[in-house]
């Protein structure tokens, strides 16, 4: 972890609103909409700014939900790669669990750290990793990578590639800067 204790701690239970309570209880038990892992530390931290969290979740559930047009396995490759590049250990730990549930093998998850040139990737998977690398470095996907992806992806899918990486770059900034600590039972890098 970049920070060993939170700069902004999760909202203590005594301060939960009635509206926040069901979501936080589910997150503590590992029964949230997106994961069967405990995700309270991030949700409870965002809970310090309830109106922002509410609006954030609407957009976050585009990227993680069924209006995103890219396959869940492919989405998780993008998210794990940008989380790795940003050194956001909390993001990595949560999405290693989610990625496994979406069909990524342990070997693939480990190989995401090595990047697009590591042996073993399909051409399409390597393009996804390259897209994340280019967005991280240049805030733009190169012509070669764009045109490679556009051979199989439609317009909405290409847009969702950028949205997934951009959103989880934002999430990495949030996790690193607020000092969100790993939830119980989670394994980091």
């Amino acid at each position, binding site marked *: 972890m970049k920070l060993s204790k939170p700069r902004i701690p999760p909202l203590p239970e005594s301060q939960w609103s009635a509206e926040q309570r069901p979501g936080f209880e589910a997150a503590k038990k590992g029964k949230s909409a997106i994961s069967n892992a405990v995700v309270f530390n991030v949700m409870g931290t965002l809970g*310090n700014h309830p109106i922002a969290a509410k609006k954030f979740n*609407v957009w976050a559930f585009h990227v993680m939900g069924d209006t995103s047009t890219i396959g869940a396995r492919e989405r998780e490759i993008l998210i794990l790669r940008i989380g790795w590049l940003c*050194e956001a250990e909390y993001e990595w730990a949560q999405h290693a669990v989610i990625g496994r549930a979406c069909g990524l093998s342990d070997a693939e998850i480990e190989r995401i750290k090595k990047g697009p040139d590591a042996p073993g990737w399909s051409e399409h998977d390597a393009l996804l990793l390259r897209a994340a690398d280019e967005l991280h470095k240049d*805030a733009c996907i190169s012509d070669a990578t764009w045109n490679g992806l556009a051979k199989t992806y439609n317009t909405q899918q290409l847009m969702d590639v950028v949205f997934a990486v951009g959103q989880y770059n934002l999430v990495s900034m949030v996790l690193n800067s607020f000092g969100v600590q790993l939830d119980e039972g989670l394994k980091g890098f």
Partner: protein
Amino acid sequence: MIKLSSMSLGCMAMLGLLLASPAHAQSAKNKSPDPTTPRIPPLEQSQWTEAQAKELAPFKDGAMMFGTKLKAYNVLGTLAQHEAARQKFNVWSNHVMGDTNTLPPREREILILRIGWLCQAEYEWGQHAVIGKGVGLTDEEIARIKLGAEAPGWSAHDALLIRAADELRKDAMISDATWNALAKTYTTQQMMDVVFTVGQYNLVSMALKSFGVQLDEGVKGF
């Protein structure tokens, strides 16, 4: 003599430009140039739904948004290619640009212009130079955002905002020094909104550049 001094002025201007170029742009010699035509063009008017027509049409000529009259069709029309995403994106985007963001608008715009500059997202810069002027940034301050936190003239607080954006772009994290200094005057929610604002416009920069969104007519770039 006159020639010499104008030459050295030219050199100084070039040096200034070099200094003003973000590290990312300098190191990115091998990357392909940003698209000069859209990769994803704005949705054709003939394809608008009734609801989209109502929302999008006014921005072709300029409509009030964020307290300023803006021509912003090229970005809004491009996002309309993915309507379900656009609707959810707008909810979050309206936190960052709206009245639930706890940062004063002038400070928000310093963050947005700086991350737009670091990402070399000219469309973002063009729009937010107009919005920034509408919320109290001077032309001189807007130009100085390109030079960064060390440029003479910033208040300590403004310099911290610029530094926060720089650190978030480079390390995806605000340093202890910058965080602690900002936290002397900012509340918890304001600290959160600093990161949300920079993160959101880092995402917007990626979208604008990767989709090849072109400047709207009459909007000035860098």
